[in-house]
Structure formats: C-alpha cells, structure tokens
C-alpha cells in the first residue's frame, strides 16, 4: 500500500475534483478553524470524498467520517491531501 501512496501527489483539498476520493496528509490551519476541522472529523490519514461544489465553485461538499460537510474553498486550501483512485 505504501508504494501506491508514493505514486500519489499531494494537492490541496480545494484542487480535488468533484466525485474524487482523497486521504488527508496534513492540515496547515491554526486556531479556531483547525479546531473546527478536527471536531468535525478532519484528521490525518482519514479518507474522504469530494461530493460537489456550489454555483460559483464555492463552497464545496465533502464526505468525511460518514457524514456530509460543507467547507469554503479558502478552508479547503488549508488541507493537504493525496488523491486516491
């Protein structure tokens, strides 16, 4: 599995296309935003999926820990993920 991970490049969550699954690598937010992300289930090595985006591509809907969560694109930019296929 580690070989497979190595092939994936790390991108910001805001770059992941709708419908694509991802794994969280790092979260570079701080303060309240960091805490909110943590409380709602954004932690290292957690898998999730981008579901869709709103009209102006912002905010975006993410599936994580079995529930659906909405994030602004500016918040998604703070989360580094690797795309899974």
């Amino acid at each position: 599995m580690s070989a497979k991970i190595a092939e994936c490049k790390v991108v910001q969550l805001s770059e992941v296309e709708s419908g694509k699954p991802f794994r969280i690598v790092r979260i570079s937010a701080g303060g309240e935003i960091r805490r909110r992300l943590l409380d709602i289930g954004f932690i290292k090595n957690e898998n999730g999926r981008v579901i869709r985006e709103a009209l102006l591509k912002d905010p975006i809907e993410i599936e994580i820990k079995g529930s659906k969560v909405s994030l602004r694109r500016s918040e998604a930019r703070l989360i580094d993920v690797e795309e899974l296929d």
Partner: protein
Amino acid sequence: MNLPAHRVHRRFRRRHGLSGLPSGQKFYRIALAGNPNSGKTSVFNALTGQRQHIGNYPGVTVEKKSGIVQIDDKLVEFIDLPGTYSLSAYSLEEVVSRDFVLNEKPDVVVDVLDSSNLERHLYLLLQFQELGVPIVGALNMTDEVEAKGVKIDSEQLSSILGIPFVKTVGSTGAGIERLLEVALKVAEGQLSSQKRHLNYGKQVELAHEAIIDTLMLDESFKERYSLHWIAVKLLEKDQDAIRKIENEHRLSAIVLQAAKDWRERLEREFGEDCEVIIGEQRYAYIHGAIKETVKISRRRQVVDFTENIDRIVLNRFLGIPIFLGVMFVIYQITFKLGNPLSDGVSIVFTHLSLFLTRILPSGPLQELLTNGIINGVGGVLTFLPLVVLLFLGLSFLEDTGYLSRAAFVMDKFFHIFGLHGRSFIPFMISTGCAVPGIMSARVLANQKDRKVTILVSPLMMCGAKAPVVAMLVAAFFPDHATIIFWSIWLFGWLMAFVIALIFKQSLFRGAQTPFVMELPPYRLPTLKNVFIHMWGKSSEYIKKAGTVILAASIVVWFLLSYPKVPTRTNDVSVENIPAIEYSFGGQLGKMVEPVLRWAGFDWKIGISLIAGVAAKEVIISTLGILYGIEARLSTDQPHVDFMVKNEIGKDQNYSPLMAIALMVFIMIYIPCIATLAMVKKELGSWKWPLFQAGYTLLVAFIMAVGIYQIGSLLGLGG
C-alpha cells in the same frame, strides 16, 4: 458554585412558584447534551412534553430550555444544553455547556448520540465524561441504523467506556422510559457511570499525570474542578482553562509553566499541535471502541435518500432557484396568511378601544387605557400571527435539514459582504416585517454574523414602510410609480449589504470564523416537535418581547399626546392646532426644522418622522392629522392615504427631489419601536438597539441631505 441541596430547593421554589416540596421528595437535575442533529430536541420533548421553560443562560444570549417533571416520588428538572460538536473554548455555546456542568453539577448528563454516526458523536460524549460528571449515553435513531443492517452491541460499548447506554428513537418515544429509568438509577448512585477519562497513549498520559501533580498543590482548587479535565484542557492550550488557573489556583505560575513545558515537549515528539494530538488520540480511542461493538450483520443495499434529494437541491444551477422558491413559500405563508390575521387582531383592538372610549368618562385615564395600553397590547398581538407562522416555516427548514443546504447555495454571494449564507433568511423575512426577521436571525450560529445581520436587517423595506413609500411615489411620480417603488425596494437591500460590509471591516473585525458545517441527512420532522417549537417561540415572544414593546409604545404614545393643548385660553394661535403639534414630539419636530431644511423637509414631515418611530405606517396618518384630514374623514385607511397623497402632491413646499430624499430617509432611519425592543431582547442589552437607532439616523440624515443638496445644485429641485 456547588449549591447545597437546600439552596437548590429554595432557588427551585422561587423560580417555579411552588409553595414547597413535600418533605422527603427527591429532586434531581438531568442535563441533556449532544451534537447538533443528534435528535436531542426530540428526546428532550419526549421527556418533558410541553412543560418547557425557555430562557437564557446567565449573562449570555444562548437559549436555555428546561422542564420539570414529576416522576413517581421524584421531581426531575431537565436542562437542554446547546448542541455542539466539541467542548472547546472557541464558541459561546461550548463554554456555556461546560460551565453549566462544572458549576451547576447536574446529577447526570444524558448525551444523545446519532447511532448512524457514532464516531463523531462519541467524540463529544468523551469530552463530557472528562468533566467528571456521571454520563448516560442515548443511542438515538437506532431504527435507522438497524434498517441499514448495522448492529450496535450497546452492552459491550458500556463495558468499554464504563458508562450505561440505552437505545432510543426520539421521534417515536421508543426507549425513552428506559433511558429515564437508567438516568435516575445513575443519579441515585444505584448504577455506576465511570468518570474516568479515556487513555491518551503513553506520552500524553505522562504529561497529564505531571500536570495533575502540580494542580494538587492547591487543596481548594481540587474540590472545585475535575483535575483530569483541567489537565487535558491545559495541554490543549484552552484559553478558558488557563484563565481559570490564573484566577483560581494559588500556584498558577507553577501550573502554567509545567503545562507549557509539557506541551512543547509533546509537540516536539509528535511534530503536531498539542490540541491536534489530543483530538487524534480521542478519535483513535473511539475507533477502537467502535471496531469492537459495531457489527454489520447483513449488508443491505439502501437507497441514499439524502444524496438523491441533494443531487437536485444542491445542483449547481438549480440550487439557488430552488432555495428562492422555498423562501417564497415561507414568505407567502408568513405574510399572506399572517397579515389578514394581524389585521383581524388589529380590528378587534380598535373596536375594544372605541368601546371603552364610549363607556368610560373622558380624561387622562381613559386615554391612557385606550390609546396607550390597549393600542400597545394590540400592537404586540398583531405581530403574533406572523411570529407563529414564521416559526412554523423555520422549524420545518431546520428540522428537515434544509437550512444548511440554504447556507451552502447562498454562501458565496453573502460571504463577499462578510455575511453567512444563512443571513438571507432574516433579510428576506425582514422585507415583510423586521420583528420576526430579527427573531429568525437565530438560524445564524455565529454570534458576530448574527449581530451584524440583526443590525442591518431593518434597512429592508418592510410591510409598514411600503405603504408610506407607495404613497409618496404616487404623489410625486405618478408616471413612473412602479420603477421608482422597486428601485427604493432594492435600495434597502443594497444598504443592508453595504453597511454589513462596513461593520464587518470595522466594528466586527477579527479572524474569519469557520464556515465548516455539517449537511445532516434529511429527516421528516414530527408534528409534535414542530408544534412544541412553535408554541415555545410564540409564548416567549409574548412574555419577553411583548412586555418591552408594550412599555415602549406607551412611552411613545405619551410623548406624542402630552402636554395637551390648553382647553381654555385667550391665545387664538393655539386654538385650531392638532393635539400632536402641541405635544413633546410635535415641539421636537418644530425645533429640528432648521436642520431638516437641509434635506428639504419641513416641520410637518419632522413631526411625522418622529411619530413614525412608533410604527412606520403612522407617518401617513400623522401627516393626515397635520393637514387636518382626519378631522374631515373617517379613519378609513385607503381614504387617508389617498387624501394625504393629494395634499402632499399639491404642497408648494415639496418637490419630487425632496420626495426622493424623504423616501431614502424613511428607508434607513431609526427602526420602529417594536423592532428596537426585539433587538434588545435578542442581543440582551439596550446598547445594541441604541447603537442601531443612532447609526441609522445619522446615515439617513447624511444621505437625505446629500441627495437634496446635490440635486438642488444640479437644478433638479424645481
């Protein structure tokens, strides 16, 4: 504050007006906790029925619901804690929840969990357990999980976490009796619920123990708080816990230094923020517990009902039109159904007032009763149908889960102005009436967003400003009435956005608040829950806002009716003056005329604008009085409108340019007294309505003067 039993009893009696508890009767307090969307409200409703008391937590505007129920020989008070995801110090709701548990020490905390999302819901439960209070877990909505073929071994979960779990279905009431039984057993000490905290792993535990050792140095501090909890919070760098140490621990410097050293050490070892390390350890622990207790017995392909709806409702292109459609329906229900009811209430009170005028001897007492009190009470009750219907709509939006979707589709646009997607709802409702509009600002979870929204919502053209603007448009722009009326309507929206942006850049500056928000699965609300929600809000409106609106409208009535025109006088000049012209308000209107002249207004308009603070539609009837129309005609509203329109249109002092300045002024200036009273009620202090009255008056005046002066310079004043 750990109250001894007899003080609890006394306070309880005082609050609930009971003459006393029969001796030997036991009194327990059970707090209800849980994530948003855990079904906590329906569990609370199932436990308390309609015996609910809605208030605020002391000193803050966070709503507190409680209810008292007699169960056998016991009296039980249920307290509904705010729904939160965590117990950090970042939000008011979270601080309120944990302070309630720490200070008031309820006998049991019942934590309601959504069984289909155990991981995130247990994350909160463990944080409550850490506060050092007995916990009972309610595995709610088990019907949904079991339908999906998932089995939760609640006994196994109990033994792992050391606390009792009961399976419930809040909406049908299944399992509620058992939940209550278990909670009471725990309260009485017959059933144990461990207060131990989870294991955070070797390194964190080491730091944790070391901090507890320093905390133990103060004997009295040990009595007040769960040291486990304080130690974890210090590791998380929780600002509120640090404050507690600074203020209450005798050796605060030693404790804080130790906490800092350990934090730095852990952060070096893990290469992560301490708060994150602890959060991740919590999740890891929960993950282990779930692995052992949740079994998927048979995999059943279920249709993802929520995703199917969202595919349409959150579609990039359909999302906004669908949302506008939903708002249109709510708006229509509130106002198209509510306005005739409001008019009905208004008519009943007018007749009551007329009846009393006939049967009572005339004099100040009769006037106070009819014009002051009865009109005031009528004013409060005319809003009631709107409030009831609005909350019918809102509770439907909220309980189904659509409200978060509304925020999702509208957020981008509102965020440009520093607002939240949900701000659309109070804005929209305020175009009908700002009183329910301001109440609906509760859909905003963030206090800053809520304050800004409340401060600007009354800038919309409401149902009371509309006839005034329509009258002015008809008088001065008969050929372009429609386009000018709708331009003024849009102007209200524009002002709300611009001023919100200014506030966000100045008064409410600060770190951006996270938008991170759950889109919960769609659920059908039960009739019972919707009804309880509506009933609670409506009775709260009458009790809390009603009294303030009543008092304020009596004050305004007094200022517009006193002093009286002297009845017997030789001074011919006062003989035919309408009473309002002679009153305090009238005198003020005349006094400020020189200033109002800059905007092209005369004293008649001055007095009408002052009277308009009572309610905006009063501007028309006051102008009517000042033109001596009401003396000639019946008080039939359309007739007054029509007559005033004719009089104003003919008045040589007024020009279309002045009319524009006046309409702009009316749109912006001081919200009506009922709105201001509502703002006070919602934001908990007179500071906010006073600020709102001040800034709107200033902006209205500057804009009206600007329009009139620049227009005159350009030669549009003719």
